């Protein structure tokens, strides 16, 4: 901390854009994860030139720099494990160009996803990754986490919409990677590894993104299943049959109970629900897709199917899924919903088995877990509901997390579908990617020889997430 020259930072970005009061540092030391650590200062650059100057200064003094969008990461991506400067990118929030002719837009990294989509809407196009957190997620954070969302099953993740980035390296040098063209076959295509790099390789100061036409017709369906396996089989068959749903979501029984508890929606108390959507420009095409999906579900035992093209009806059908988050947090008194084992991907054929396994592991460890997700992308989310004040809950959670990822790994799945790795998923990531860790460290070193950019994350994170930082929760039987 003593080596930080606050006046130098103020010279670069102006007095008003630096904070170092302990209260500010406490806030900027957390995100939506279980972790917390204190940075030394928060700095808000306004343009790429300022970012370059900050990096030059930090590099010469070997001060860690952690780029931060809205801090909605769920795995501690922006938590400054070794202190340093939080580089708050939200002031760089200009949409620089919407080029309809060449079908791309250029934006600064602090632009909020919903804002970008609001600006694109008049042209009947959209930027598709749209994570659930699109109301606050910045484009920089989405690229760095390689975010995706409910519609990624059809439209892909942030990486798939990324044509190019302008990056400030640890040295302060600025390089543009990528292109504005639709395809590119040149060499290493560095922009693609920037997606998912979680702020460890450089600071994104501009992104070139492609957009796609907004469908004019959407149809949403919902089907109930008495057995989880039947829902699982339906998912595999839908995806293997050549259907292209624009949404395919699984909701398990714990989640259904939580939704019914909180919202009194009277969803049937079944083992699983599938929610699916087809979209397009031609009614017949959408009809064809949705009927095919519905038929597959019903062949596997799906019943009580509801379908609707109507916007209000669709909203009603989707309410439960949309409000799943708040519902889970109200599942049981004193059982906060923690962001642990928060996401993973498994092959389609293993969705049902994974859900069962999650319930089994939860039971063994005496915690509550719900499983739900964008199963059309093979993405499964969980939340661990537990008494966060007890150290035994944390021990149980630690065991459950390890068991879950051991299983995911064993069936050919991967540690993160969309939320990223950060700190809390790093042990599982390091086991899964053991063979490529050294190569990744080599890449990191080529970009950032002094290891100042978001150190202690991804391949360089601790093997012990529980003790890697202080927890944001107060564990009352720990310090007495």
């Amino acid at each position, binding site marked *: 901390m003593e080596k930080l020259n606050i006046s130098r930072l103020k010279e670069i970005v102006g007095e008003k854009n630096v904070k170092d009061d302990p209260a500010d540092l406490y806030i900027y030391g*957390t995100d939506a994860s279980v972790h917390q650590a204190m940075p030394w200062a928060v700095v808000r650059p306004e343009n790429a030139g300022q970012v370059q100057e900050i990096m030059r200064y930090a590099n010469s003094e070997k001060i860690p720099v952690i780029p931060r969008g809205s801090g909605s990461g769920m795995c501690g991506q922006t938590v400054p494990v070794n202190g340093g400067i939080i580089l708050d990118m939200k002031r760089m929030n200009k949409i620089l160009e919407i080029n309809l002719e060449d079908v791309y837009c250029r934006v600064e990294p602090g632009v909020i996803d919903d804002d970008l989509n609001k600006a694109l809407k008049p042209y009947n196009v959209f930027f598709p990754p749209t994570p659930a957190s699109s109301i606050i997620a910045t484009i920089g954070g989405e690229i760095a986490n390689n975010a995706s969302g409910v519609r990624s099953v059809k439209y892909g993740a942030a990486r798939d919409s990324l044509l190019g980035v302008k990056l400030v390296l640890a040295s302060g040098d600025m390089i543009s990677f990528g292109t504005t063209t639709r395809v590119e076959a040149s060499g290493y295509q560095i922009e693609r590894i920037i997606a998912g790099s979680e702020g460890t390789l450089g600071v994104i100061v501009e992104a070139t993104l492609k957009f796609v036409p907004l469908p004019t017709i959407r149809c949403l369906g919902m089907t109930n299943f008495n057995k989880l396996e039947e829902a699982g089989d339906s998912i595999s068959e839908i995806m293997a049959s050549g259907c292209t749903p624009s949404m395919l979501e699984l909701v398990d029984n714990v989640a259904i109970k939580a939704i019914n508890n909180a919202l009194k929606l009277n969803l049937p108390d079944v083992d699983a629900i599938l929610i699916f959507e087809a979209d397009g420009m031609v009614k017949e095409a959408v009809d064809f897709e949705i009927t095919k999906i519905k038929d597959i579900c019903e062949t596997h035992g799906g019943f009580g199917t509801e379908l609707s093209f109507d916007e209000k009806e669709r909203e009603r059908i989707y309410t439960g899924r949309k409000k799943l988050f708040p519902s889970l947090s109200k599942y049981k008194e004193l059982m906060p919903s923690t962001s642990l084992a928060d996401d993973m991907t498994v092959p389609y054929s293993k969705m049902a088995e994974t859900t069962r396994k999650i319930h089994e592991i939860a039971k063994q460890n005496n915690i509550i877990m719900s499983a739900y997700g964008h199963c059309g992308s093979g993405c499964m989310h969980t939340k661990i509901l537990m008494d966060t004040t007890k150290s035994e809950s944390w021990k149980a959670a630690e065991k459950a997390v390890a068991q879950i990822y051991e299983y995911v790994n064993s069936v050919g799945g991967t540690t993160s579908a969309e939320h990223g790795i950060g700190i809390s998923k790093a042990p599982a990531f390091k086991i899964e990617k053991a063979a490529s860790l050294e190569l990744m460290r080599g890449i990191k070193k080529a970009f950032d020889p002094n290891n100042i950019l978001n150190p202690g994350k991804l391949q360089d994170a601790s093997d012990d997430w529980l003790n890697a930082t202080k927890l944001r929760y107060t564990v009352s039987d720990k310090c007495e």
Partner: protein
Amino acid sequence: MNKPKIKLNRLEKWKGSLDVCIRCGYCFAHCPIYKDTRWETDAPRGKMTLIYGLINGEVEPTDYVAEKLLECFYCKRCENNCSSSLPITQIFTDAQADLLEAGFDVKGTTSVTNRGQCTLCLECVRLCKHEARSYDGRIVVDTVKCQSCGSCIDSCPRMAISMNLGFGTNPDEMRSEITGFLKDDKRKNAKAIVFCCNWSNYPGFQVAELVSEDPDPEYKILVTMCSGRVQSQVIMEAFAQGAWGVLVTMCPEDKCEHDGNVRTKMRINSLKKAIHELGIGPERVQLEIVEKGNQKQFQDGVKKFMKEIKDAGPLKRG
């Protein structure tokens, strides 16, 4: 767990709720205070985190922390977006009460009265819907009860009331925005000011700036905490700076959180008469009722208004 550094009699009960907060940040997406400063410390999630730190002893209660926790316009935009359905503003109110009890003397967004200017007409006491103002030999403001709507500020005939922190909504801040827009030499199209109530139609506005959007727009939107806060002097300032017209939007009659719209209606009616006497057509000041979050109603209202004032043309300078 460290001990809290001060007694937090009211806040202790929220410990469980603060654990339930998943720190997602959805609450700050539409917070007008965050939108003004863009510092997470001014955003509801930041304040929830500070309160958590106060309770577990990790955050030192200082004037700075107290000031932050006393900043809130009680628009409840945060609560309406909260992933965990937490009663965020109730938690803030308890934090304020505990901090004030512990002896912190900060005002945040509370309205304050300049005793030198106040003639004790008690107009503000009568109109405050939140019973935050009373008379005890002088005007006393209950900092915890005050919801910072600003209604008292513009109703005071002596202009004795103000808010130290306005986050863009104080009359002075508005005046400088008006001048900045209408008197900017680079702008050729600037014609009108639209006052937009934070409660009724602000939610849809973006944080991002669209560079390719019209660089020289015809009107500027200024957000107020309640239409009742738009003082006649501020509207007249717009005309003095060359505006062709001013539009004020407000919530439907029985829907205003602060009963400010009743006064707005009266004010705009008398202002129409006053400007008429000055030779300015009454159509230059208009009022539009917009339901909460009804973006279409808002846009249609603005469109109609702009057409009318463009038909009327620029004000003739006498």
